[in-house]
């Protein structure tokens, strides 16, 4: 983005009357001009009410500490009515246990969490490494290609297929379903209604139901479908609830890591001093991985619904109000993070970011995500090649998934 575009966004963000600011506007995310708006809200109105938006009225929580407060108070702020700003209709399923409160949430989460236990991650490490190597060694050298398609999508979709024990040759369907599930129907793409979305997700349900039926009659295995099919807390799910959990797991395990893989390449290219520092000291990889996840914030927000009247910083949030926690803003809060707008791979406390959320809904796959990013960068550095960005990224049109449609790169010898 040009300096003048940044300046124009900043001017507008500070000129608008505060009650007219609407940070759910997806154009601001596609253009990456959302930042001065969040900055203004953090400074002038950190608990902000937007009375009118495409998604109806909603509260924005923009400071790190306040997000922490809402995220950890699941008694006052429920997930049962949905966890994104989009309004559910058209028969769309609830997105699985992430959109449940205790005790149902707790039981279902515990059913799938062993897949990302430290023991299982150790078992997966070699598989991931050999796939990363195969992908990296197949990339063209000296000619431009789309990093998102050839690396980010490929690596995360292969991982997802393994976790589900999903037919490997059909794995592209997982990416497709994940993208459709998170599509904002207001974004002007081919999926422009909840009905169209539901039609595609119906195909997803049909496919997964076949896998379920195979596995429910087989011995328990250690893939996600088998775990769901054999656990007392999930084996009697209705189709909609099953679909909801499938969507949760494919979006959670797919879009997020995918976009952090792409984001890392973009940030290192935007910050050549950091790229140099990394190449001189590969020990910084784990700390850089956390910084990539902070700086990317692959899910810009999570939403709750107030179930009792609650006061935060003098504002009264009424029962029934939609409350949006902007993780993307919390991760740029100067009160919580030093130089938050800079990408710095050797921060003192790199793990203290808000991208995974906090409290009982905290990302269950966070260590798997970190491991994939770590292994990818270990293998990139071993190969002594530079991944050079050769054009502007195209961003996803969404205020939920902060991601990339494409990132043109060219690999050259270091």
């Amino acid at each position: 983005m040009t300096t003048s575009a940044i300046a124009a966004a900043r001017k507008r963000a500070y000129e608008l009357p505060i009650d007219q600011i609407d940070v759910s506007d997806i154009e601001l995310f596609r253009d990456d001009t959302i930042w001065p708006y969040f900055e203004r809200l953090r400074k002038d109105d950190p608990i902000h009410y937007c009375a009118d938006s495409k998604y109806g009225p909603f509260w924005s929580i923009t400071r790190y500490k306040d997000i922490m407060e809402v995220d950890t108070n699941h008694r006052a702020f429920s997930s049962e009515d949905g966890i994104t700003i989009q309004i559910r209709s058209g028969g769309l399923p609830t997105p699985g246990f992430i959109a449940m409160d205790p005790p149902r949430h707790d039981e279902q989460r515990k059913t799938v969490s062993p897949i990302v236990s430290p023991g299982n991650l150790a078992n997966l490490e070699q598989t991931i490494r050999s796939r990363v190597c195969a992908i990296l060694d197949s990339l063209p050298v000296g000619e431009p290609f789309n990093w998102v398609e050839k690396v980010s999508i490929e690596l995360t979709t292969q991982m997802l297929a393994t976790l589900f024990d999903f037919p490997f040759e059909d794995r592209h369907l997982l990416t497709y379903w994940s993208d459709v599930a998170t599509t904002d129907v207001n974004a002007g793409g081919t999926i422009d209604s909840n009905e169209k979305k539901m039609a595609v997700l119906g195909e997803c349900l049909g496919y997964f139901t076949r896998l379920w039926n195979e596995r429910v009659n087989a011995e328990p295995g250690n893939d996600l479908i088998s775990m769901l099919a054999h656990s007392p807390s999930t084996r009697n799910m209705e189709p909609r609830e099953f679909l909801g959990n499938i969507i949760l797991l494919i979006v959670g395990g797919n879009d997020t890591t995918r976009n952090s893989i792409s984001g890392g390449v973009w940030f290192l290219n935007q910050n050549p001093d950091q790229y140099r520092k990394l190449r001189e000291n590969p020990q910084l990889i784990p700390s850089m991985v956390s910084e990539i996840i902070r700086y990317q914030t692959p899910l810009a927000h999570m939403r709750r619904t107030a179930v009792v009247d609650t006061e935060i910083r003098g504002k009264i949030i009424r029962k029934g109000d939609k409350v949006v926690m902007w993780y993307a803003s919390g991760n740029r809060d100067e009160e919580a993070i030093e130089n938050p707008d800079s990408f710095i791979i050797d921060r003192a406390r790199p793990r203290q970011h808000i991208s995974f959320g906090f409290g009982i809904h905290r990302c269950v796959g966070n260590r798997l995500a970190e491991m994939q990013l770590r292994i990818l960068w270990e293998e990139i550095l071993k190969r002594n090649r530079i991944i050079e960005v050769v054009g502007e990224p195209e961003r996803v049109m969404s205020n939920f998934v902060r991601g990339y449609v494409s990132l043109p790169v060219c690999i050259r010898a270091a």
Partner: protein
Amino acid sequence: MPKVIYAEQNGTMHEVELPDGVSLMQGALDHSVPGIDGDCGGECACGTCHVYVDGSWLGRLEAIGEAEASMLSFADGAKPNSRLACQIKISSELDGLVVALPEAQH
């Protein structure tokens, strides 16, 4: 200053002196004890400072709170002597405390 010992699963012991009032989680981070992540910075909100409290020490700690119990219920390998290190404040009564670290934080 009270001394505490963090024991890794591979048997490595880390004995450190911590000032009164600091949390067992912060103490580990300040002394670069591996195996304590402390992602939320001590807010009892992430479960990544999980430790196993050694034997008789368990009953000498302040009782476990609701939020801590809830986060621990999601921790891998949680046992009856599991605690979150961010919720344990160091004092002279805890001089000699021994905690074991889990395989990894999750």
